């Protein structure tokens, strides 16, 4: 399956991927409305850029083959789609116990405090290429099978 692979050697730490992620997951699909209005009501990006000195890298769910988050999920909200290989998340089911957030050793599950539920990368359901990859100005994110 295709996954999003970060390349920290060329990540410039611009955080544009976060903005792209936010917009792609917004109701309005408009960057300004998403960031100004929808964030206030709990919209959050699933992407996070980590910076350390001169190194930056943009990380999100790896869609592991045998994911710890699915093991830990008590509500069935997280599951592995056998056909696509994706680690899927059904927000309806999530009870906000944060077990997955603790179990994921990649720190790729995040807390949406407003909703009391988790958020994580869905590889941009409905888009050919995830928004973060498409927006990255330096090819520091690639979407491919390895």
């Amino acid at each position: 399956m295709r996954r999003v692979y970060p390349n920290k050697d060329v990540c410039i730490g611009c955080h544009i991927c976060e903005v792209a992620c936010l917009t792609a997951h917004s109701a309005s699909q408009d960057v300004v409305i998403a960031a100004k209005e929808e964030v206030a009501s709990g919209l959050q990006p699933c992407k996070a850029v980590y910076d350390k000195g001169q190194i930056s890298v943009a990380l999100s769910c790896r869609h592991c083959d045998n994911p710890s988050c699915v093991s830990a999920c008590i509500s069935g909200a997280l599951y592995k789609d056998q056909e696509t290989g994706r680690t899927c998340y059904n927000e309806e089911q999530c009870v906000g116990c944060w077990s997955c957030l603790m179990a994921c050793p990649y720190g790729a599950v995040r807390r949406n405090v407003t909703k009391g539920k988790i958020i994580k990368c869905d590889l941009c359901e409905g888009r050919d290429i995830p928004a973060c990859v498409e927006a990255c100005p330096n090819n520091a994110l690639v979407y491919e099978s390895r």
Partner: protein
Amino acid sequence: MSYVIIGNGVASVGAIEGIRKVDTKTPILVVSEEDTPTYGRPLISYFLAGKIGLDRVSLRPDEFYEKNNVEVKLNTRVAAIDKAAKTITTEADEVIEYKELLLATGGVPFMPPIKGIDGSGVYNFTTLAHAHELLDLSKRIHRVVVVGGGLIGLKAAEALRYNGLSTAIVELGSRVLSAAFDDVAGNLVAQRLEEKGITICCGTTVEEILRTEQGEVIGVRLANGQKLACEAVVVAIGVVPSLNLAKDAGIAVNRGIKVDDNMCTSAEGVYAAGDVAEAPDMIAEEARVTPIWPNAFSQGYHAGLNMASEEASPHPGGLPMNAISFYGLPTASLGHVNPNEDEDCEVFTELDEENGTYRKLIFRNEKLIGYVLVGEVDFAGLYTGFIRFGLDLTPDVKEELIAGQPSALLWPEEEFDTKWTPAAE
């Protein structure tokens, strides 16, 4: 011949998914004494508290069993295993052959020998049926005492309090949650529960359940002499592995059913996973029963892989972890969190009483081996990575962890490159 799984908890679901990863054809039979398809067991407190309806308790979609070619026999108890003949016999005397067998029988609530414990008005809280009972009960009564200040006890108390009951917790230890967490975390949680009107009595135990002459529960008498009035008692001290089937079949048991890395028991073709299994641990030297949810799933998953495949796929080892929220106060604890003095561990703690946050990190041999977080749990997973992968810590990195700034960029570069972004093979 099918794969047979006894038990219908999360280990069972893990095993089904593990088997199907390798073998998509051979039928699977699940035998369960419960009457419902697999549900998220920890969700029973959410259900009891009224936060979710019955429609949300199932762990997998309705079509899960059919899609995976799994036959489920509910309300069926297994009476015996014949490991030589490779059969199981149900209480209804049905004999079923198995190709490979998984014991995922979980545990049963531990009932301490308290005077007056036998009889009506005493409940447990480990199954959906228990939750239904308590929900009914909460409409009829006003006061309840929960025995046990562990995770199940506290969640039971919280849920009952949500139903308007006057609720008290009795815990033998000096603090609640002291086993999975520690005293400081226990205190913060206790504070939150007390703010919400739950009474907490620590350092004492229930000596007697007081009853009327008709046998109705009217209260409990504690070891310290105090009496608490109540109409029901919920005993939530913990669970003990259901070993009888295995023991009777001559399968090696200790505290749980003994299994190796591949979840194999002493009997050929028989596996065990979940709360019933005593398996190698990721951090501790000796094998342990680690009765926690993620462990049960992953043990089940690996058991499933091994049942269906010639190639061994060892389980990475049990890793205790608990994440749970009390009235919105999130907590997480993972790994080895209460080291003894002689263990040569380095413990770092930071408590912010004003904001109700607490962070405890336990290091040994320049590795992180455990943590407790209260209030701020957002970085939990990033700490977990250091423990799960046993990453070596340089002084700088350790400093950052202690400062509450874990990051994937603190991983040794090679680990990051091989684990976070594995290159094409």
